[in-house]
């Protein structure tokens, strides 16, 4: 298998946070990061499955991946502008 694994430049611990804080923390971290930076978020709020993709579309950043792992939700976001 030769699947490319994107390595995050930064990992955000968003566990235990509820709406709107996962999105708020993510956006603050993205704002501080440089263009092209990849951020990984780990949350426990199931709402991120809908909200992170919506945030990416609205803010114009790239959602690389999002998946559930047990009780956690892991996603990768790339700052595109």
């Amino acid at each position, binding site marked *: 298998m030769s699947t490319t694994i994107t390595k995050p430049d930064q990992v955000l611990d968003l566990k235990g946070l*509820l709406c*709107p804080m996962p*999105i*708020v923390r993510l*956006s*603050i971290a993205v704002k501080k990061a440089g263009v092209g930076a990849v951020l990984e978020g780990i949350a426990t709020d199931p709402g991120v499955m809908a909200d992170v993709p*919506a*945030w990416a579309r*609205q803010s*114009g950043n790239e959602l690389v991946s999002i998946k559930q792992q047990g009780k956690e939700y892991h996603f990768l976001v790339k700052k595109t502008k």
Partner: protein
Amino acid sequence: MQTATQFTVQTASDIKPQSNKLSMVVFSGDMDKVMAAFIIATGAAASGMDVTMFFTFWGLKSIQNGKLTGQGLFGRMLGLMNRGGMSTIGPSRFNFGGMGRWMMKTMMKQKNVASLPELLATAQELGVKMMPCLMSMEVLEIGTDKLIPATTAPVGVATFIEEAAGSKVTLFI
């Protein structure tokens, strides 16, 4: 110097319509409604939108610093019975003289939901513009010294309309 021939009148069509902006009137001073207002405001700002909140009437309570307000008898009575400040406002239903507020706050804390003071601080951090309504401040006898420093100078309806006219999303809460 501008001559008569060079003079152009700016019409509504010249103003860029619908920029990526959200304008909101916060009329309510109830904990639950203010919470909704701040969650939407912070969420929009986090998604890259410019956000303006216009606080009028009871809505002013959420941007007050908690000091007692009022100059005249009625104003002082109102200030006593209607304390401002994010930590003093109660829910629109089941407040029961503060019991409901305490219960809701406790439940929110247990679930790790951001508190109103946290949401207010987040809104400031994200650059949400907070405009107090001058007329309401006059009526309710709330001076600018009774507001949190993050607010803009008090404004009137025309300023809000200018903000709202250029916004994709407008809300009244």
